C-alpha cells in the first residue's frame, strides 16, 4: 500500500512555478500577520472574532459553513462523485440541509440559552459527569482520528507539490501545523477557516468550468459518464435505489433516508462541537438559530463544484480508482494539474493547503479544549490555578499533533477518505444524537440512561463495522455499512435509554430548567434585537425555504 501511494504521489506532481509560490506566500503572510497583530492589539483573552457572543448571523453562518467545508470534504465529495456519481448529492440535499435547519430551529435555543461551553458540558448538565466524560473521551478520540485524515490529505498535496514520499510529507506537514497553531493561535485559525473557503472556491470554479468545456458541456459529460464504468446509474440520485444492488452507492432508499438523511446527518450536524460552537458565538438567540440556516443555502450549491469535477475526472482519467491507477481522492488534484495554468493553479493549491491546515488546527484545538476542560479539570485534577490548565492545554496540543501522525497512517489505508470519515461519524455521532433527542424531549429520561445509552450505542456501531470488515455482515459497500451501522446504533441507544430510565430515578425538574423541551428557564431574559421579528429573519421561514429548495434541486436528477 505505501508503495502504491508513493507512485500515486509522483504521478500527481503539479507543475508549480514561482508565481504560484508567491500566491501561496501572500496567503500565509496575511494569516500570520493577522494573528500577530491581533495578539498585540488585544491584550485580554477576549477573542475579537468570536468575541463574547457579539456576532451577527451572517458571520457566524459563514464560519459555520467554513468549519464544515474543509478540503477533506471537498476532495472526499469529488471522490464520491467519481465513484458513485450523482447519488453523491444526497450528502448535501438530504444528508445535510434538513439537519442544519433542525439544528437552527429546534436545538440551538437549548445550546445557546443554557450558556454551556461545549457539547460534553451540556451532557453534564442534562445527565451527569459520567456521560460528560464518556462523550469527551470519544470526542477527543474522534478529533485525533479526523486530524489524521486532514494531515494525510495535507501530506498528499505537499507530496504532489514537492514529490516527497508520503511519510516525510506527513511529518513535515505536522511540524508546520504545530508551528502554525502555536504562532497564529486560535484567532488566526478561525480567520483562516473563513478565508480558505473563499480561496478554495476561487480555485474550484475555474476547474469546474474548464472541466465542463473539456468534456463538451453538460450533455457531453452525461454521454461520457454513460459510457464509463459508472454507466447510466451514475446520472441518477434516486432511480435504482428500490433495491440495494441496482445503484452505484449500493444503498436502499430507506438506508439513504433513515441512515444518511436522519441518523448520520442529524448526528453530525446537531451534536458536532466544532459546528455548534460557531452558533454559540452569535449575538443573540435569533442570530444563533439563523447561523446553520444561513449556511444551508450555500451548502445546497456546493455539489456543483465537487460532484461535477468528480464526474469530469472519471471520464478524463480512465484508470481513476482502478488498481495501479490514481485514487478517487486525487480527482481534484489531477484536474488541477491537467487544466490550470500557473496563477490560478497557485490559488487552488493555496486553497487546499490552507484548508487542510485550518481543518487540522480546528481538530487539535477542539481536542485540547475538551481534554483540558471536560476530561482533566472536570474529572482528574479539579482545583488548580488557571495557568496549570493553560500549560496542560499546550502539552495536549503537542500530544494531539503527535497522535495525529499515527492516525494519518491509518487514514492512508483508505482509498476513499470520505468513507472512512463517515464510518467514524457512525461510531460517535449517531448514538450521541439518539441520546440528545430523547433527553431533550423526554424530561423523565434519567442521568444513567444517558450514560448507558451512549455507551451501548457507540459499542454497537463499532461492532457492526468490525463485523462488516471481517465479512460476517454483508452490507455491500462501505458506505452502506456506515448507514446501517449508524441506524442500528441509534435504535440500540434509544432502547437502552428507555429501559434504563424506567428502572432509575429521574432528575428533579428544578435541575432541568432550560435543558429540556417544555421546561423553560424563566430567569433568562428575552434577548431579541430590533428587526428580529421581520419575516426574512424568521428561522422557520428561512429554514423551510432551504429544505424546499433542496427538494426542488433533486428534480432534474431523479
Amino acid at each position: 500500500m505505501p508503495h502504491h501511494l508513493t507512485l500515486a504521489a509522483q504521478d500527481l506532481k503539479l507543475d508549480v512555478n514561482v508565481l504560484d509560490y508567491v500566491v501561496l506566500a501572500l496567503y500565509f503572510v496575511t494569516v500570520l500577520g493577522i494573528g500577530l497583530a491581533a495578539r498585540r492589539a488585544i491584550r485580554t483573552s477576549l477573542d475579537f472574532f468570536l468575541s463574547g457572543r457579539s456576532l451577527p448571523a451572517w458571520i457566524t453562518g459563514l464560519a459555520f459553513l467554513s468549519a464544515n467545508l474543509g478540503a477533506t470534504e471537498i476532495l472526499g465529495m469529488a471522490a464520491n462523485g467519481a465513484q458513485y456519481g450523482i447519488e453523491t448529492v444526497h450528502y448535501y440535499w438530504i444528508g445535510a440541509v434538513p439537519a442544519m435547519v433542525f439544528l437552527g430551529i429546534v436545538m440551538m435555543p437549548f445550546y445557546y440559552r443554557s450558556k454551556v461551553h461545549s457539547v460534553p458540558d451540556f451532557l453534564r448538565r442534562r445527565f451527569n459527569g459520567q456521560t460528560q466524560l464518556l462523550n469527551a473521551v470519544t470526542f477527543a478520540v474522534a478529533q485525533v482520528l479526523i486530524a489524521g485524515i486532514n494531515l494525510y490529505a495535507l501530506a498528499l498535496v505537499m507530496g504532489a507539490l514537492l514529490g516527497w514520499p508520503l511519510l516525510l510529507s506527513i511529518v513535515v506537514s505536522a511540524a508546520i501545523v504545530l508551528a502554525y497553531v502555536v504562532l497564529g493561535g486560535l484567532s488566526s485559525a478561525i480567520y483562516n477557516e473563513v478565508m480558505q473557503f473563499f480561496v478554495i472556491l476561487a480555485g474550484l470554479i475555474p476547474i469546474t468550468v474548464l472541466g465542463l468545456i473539456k468534456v463538451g458541456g453538460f450533455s457531453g459529460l452525461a454521454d461520457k459518464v454513460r459510457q464509463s464504468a459508472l454507466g447510466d446509474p451514475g446520472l441518477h440520485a434516486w432511480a435504482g435505489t428500490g433495491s440495494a444492488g441496482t445503484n452505484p452507492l449500493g444503498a436502499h432508499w430507506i438506508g439513504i433516508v433513515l441512515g444518511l438523511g436522519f441518523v448520520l446527518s442529524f448526528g453530525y450536524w446537531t451534536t458536532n462541537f466544532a459546528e455548534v460552537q460557531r452558533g454559540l458565538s452569535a449575538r443573540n438567540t435569533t442570530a444563533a438559530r439563523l447561523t446553520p440556516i444561513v449556511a444551508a443555502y450555500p451548502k445546497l450549491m456546493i455539489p456543483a463544484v465537487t460532484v461535477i469535477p468528480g464526474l469530469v475526472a472519471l471520464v478524463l482519467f480512465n484508470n481513476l480508482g482502478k488498481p495501479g491507477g490514481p485514487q478517487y481522492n486525487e480527482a481534484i488534484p489531477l484536474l488541477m494539474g491537467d487544466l490550470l495554468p500557473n496563477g490560478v493553479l497557485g490559488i487552488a493549491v493555496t486553497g487546499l493547503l490552507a484548508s487542510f491546515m485550518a481543518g487540522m488546527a480546528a481538530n487539535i484545538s477542539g481536542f485540547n479544549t475538551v481534554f483540558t476542560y471536560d476530561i482533566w479539570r472536570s474529572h482528574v485534577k479539579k482545583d488548580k490555578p488557571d495557568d496549570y490548565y493553560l500549560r496542560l492545554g499546550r502539552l495536549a496540543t503537542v500530544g494531539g499533533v503527535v497522535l495525529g501522525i499515527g492516525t494519518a497512517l491509518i487514514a492512508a489505508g483508505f482509498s476513499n477518505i470520505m468513507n472512512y470519515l463517515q464510518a467514524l461519524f457512525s461510531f460517535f455521532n449517531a448514538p450521541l444524537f439518539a441520546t440528545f433527542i430523547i433527553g431533550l424531549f423526554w424530561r423523565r429520561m434519567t442521568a444513567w440512561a444517558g450514560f448507558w445509552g451512549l455507551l451501548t450505542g457507540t459499542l454497537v456501531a463499532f461492532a457492526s463495522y468490525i463485523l462488516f470488515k471481517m465479512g460476517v455482515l454483508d452490507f455491500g459497500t462501505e458506505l452502506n455499512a456506515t448507514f446501517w451501522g449508524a441506524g442500528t446504533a441509534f435504535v440500540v441507544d434509544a432502547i437502552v435509554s428507555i429501559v434504563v430510565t424506567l428502572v432509575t430515578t429521574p432528575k428533579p425538574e428544578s435541575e432541568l430548567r432550560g435543558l429540556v423541551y417544555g421546561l423553560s428557564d424563566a430567569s433568562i431574559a428575552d434577548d431579541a434585537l430590533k428587526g428580529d421579528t421581520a419575516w426574512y429573519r424568521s428561522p422557520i421561514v428561512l429554514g423551510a425555504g432551504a429544505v424546499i429548495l433542496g427538494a426542488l434541486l433533486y428534480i432534474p436528477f431523479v
Partner: protein
Amino acid sequence: MSGEIDRKRVARLFDIRRIIGGLFLLYGMILTVVGILDGQASVDKAEGVRINLWTGIAMIVVGAVFLVWERLRPLDAPDPSHAEEAEERTE
C-alpha cells in the same frame, strides 16, 4: 470607555470582510496581469480560455463587493448585556 472604542476600532480593522476583500483584490490584480501576459501554452492548457484573466476579473469584483459591503454596513457588535441602552428592543 477608551478601551471600548479601541476594541471597536480593532474589530473594524480586522473585519473579515476587509481581509477577504483586500486579499481577493490583490490576487485578482495579480491574476489579471498574468492573464494578459499569458503565453499560448497556458491558454492551450486551459482549453483555450484565458482563465487567469477571467478568474482575476472575478476575484477583483468579489473583493470589491466585500469592501463595499464592509463600508456600507460596518460591524457594530452590540453587547447583549447593554442592549437596553440601545433602546431598540422588541418585545
